[in-house]
């Protein structure tokens, strides 16, 4: 397997409670990996270790390594803003920035000084809004507030905004759980279209969505990874009793 992210001996503690226990996994490049498991098993926590979001919560402790392209993102001399540029995040609830639709897409490119002039920014905004499947709906009102969009449109805007900083990895923490079915489907189709170019890691609580999206599956339980493997293997022939129970219990 061509691993994009490698997790080695990862342990995470919230104050006293241990949330992740000795995690060792690899996330394949340019595929969709789905993390499943009952609520509270540590899916969000694991995802947060990939873009160093865990350190935004006080009192957390982390041991072990997370390697992206072979480099430990927790090394002392690593710039956290560079990590988050390479590892993008699609949050559970869309949260547009307090600015126009256009400026939301420009924001990330601007702070990383990725474009030279207005023309380049304009072209990039159009490009990423098209990729996110939002251009046709918003090209006439690019300077309206981002909050004037529906929740589903806002989530696609957040996708465009995230892609605009040219990440290699997209993380999604239940990115469709706040959306209506049609908007969810829309986001899912985008993620599938994009998977050739991006390594995607999605946390989901719906088994059907996992089955629609996953190339690779990680099943977690009480802070441990119980099983990890290709979607076909895990869904058709789970090796562990717990995984089997989860798959059957939910159907």
């Amino acid at each position, binding site marked *: 397997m061509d691993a994009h992210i490698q997790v080695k001996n990862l342990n995470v503690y919230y104050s006293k409670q241990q949330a992740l226990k000795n995690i060792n996994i690899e996330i394949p490049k340019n595929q969709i990996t789905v993390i499943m498991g009952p609520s509270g098993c540590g899916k969000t926590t694991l995802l947060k270790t990939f873009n160093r979001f865990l350190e935004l919560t006080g009192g957390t402790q982390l041991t072990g390594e997370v390697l992206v392209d072979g480099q430990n993102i927790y090394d002392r001399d690593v710039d956290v803003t560079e*990590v988050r540029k390479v590892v993008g995040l699609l949050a559970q609830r869309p*949260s547009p920035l307090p600015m*126009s639709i256009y400026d939301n897409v420009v924001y*990330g490119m601007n*702070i990383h000084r990725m474009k030279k002039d207005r023309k380049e920014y304009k072209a990039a905004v159009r490009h990423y809004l098209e990729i996110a499947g939002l251009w046709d709906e918003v090209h006439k009102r690019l300077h309206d507030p981002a909050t004037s969009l529906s929740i589903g449109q806002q989530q696609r805007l957040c996708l465009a905004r995230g892609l605009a900083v040219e990440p290699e990895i997209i993380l999604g923490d239940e990115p469709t759980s706040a959306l209506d079915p049609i908007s969810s489907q829309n986001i899912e189709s985008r993620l599938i279209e994009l998977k050739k170019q991006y390594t995607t890691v999605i946390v989901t609580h719906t088994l059907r969505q996992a089955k629609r999206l996953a190339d690779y599956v990680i099943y977690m339980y009480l802070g441990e990874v119980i099983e990890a493997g290709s979607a076909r293997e895990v869904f058709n022939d789970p090796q562990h009793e717990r995984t089997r129970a989860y798959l059957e219990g939910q159907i």
Partner: protein
Amino acid sequence: MGFLKKKRWQRRHLVETFMKFIMRFSLVIVAGSLGLILWIVVVRGTPALSLDMVTKIPEGGYYMGKGGGILNAILGSLYLASGGTLLAMIFSVPIAMYLKTYLGDSKWGYYVRLSLDVLWGIPSIVYGAFGFTLMIALGLRASLLAGIIILALIELPIMTRAMDEVIRRMPIDLEHAALALGSTKFEVALRVVTRQMLPGITTAILLGFGRGIGDAASVLFTAGYTDRIPTSLMRPTASLPLAVFFQLGSPYPEVQQRGYAAALILTIIVLAVSLGSRWLSARLNKYTIK
């Protein structure tokens, strides 16, 4: 349609009609009083309003009806209120930040907010008396600076609480969204947090300014009154509320009329500031996340 009962005058309908009447009545009283105040100020003040009023200082015999104007009071009030607002801002921003960052919703946070709300409700004459006592103890004379300090104290609770509410309503998701794109914390503060909070902060500042410029009792004790244009922080200064007060108390009808003109000028300044702030907030508010 048989199941729909015809509306009858049951008790609940009567109660509703009565309540609606009370609400409308209160509204009419409030709007009516405001209209009446404006009406009186405009009708009585306009005749005395002239270019001289706003461009000249009192000349000899002004208070007996001779020539001159109240430029000293207009400038004095603007200096006092702007200075007080600026000073209050310098202190209220860090206090509000401290409340949010370190005290939060803790017991101490509750006490600090309670104290601020109590301070808010204290009549300004008490502040004036406090300032006066302090100045006597320190052997200081009435001055622009003393007036600014006392106005800053009066404005501080309103501004701090208004900013506190603004900061408390700052969604944490917003910071995370910006951080997730690789922002530094400074970029988050500068480009995202400020944008979200600017309308609220503008409102807070103008609330403070409004209270400061209209206050008579506190500056009476601390800033004094003079016919000269203020040129130094250490000298006394005139102010519009006191110009209204002194002139209305005069036995000369011309001077009384000038009192109303001064009130009209003060009203226009306050109106301009609040309309301006409304307009500015609405513009800035367009993009904020509710």
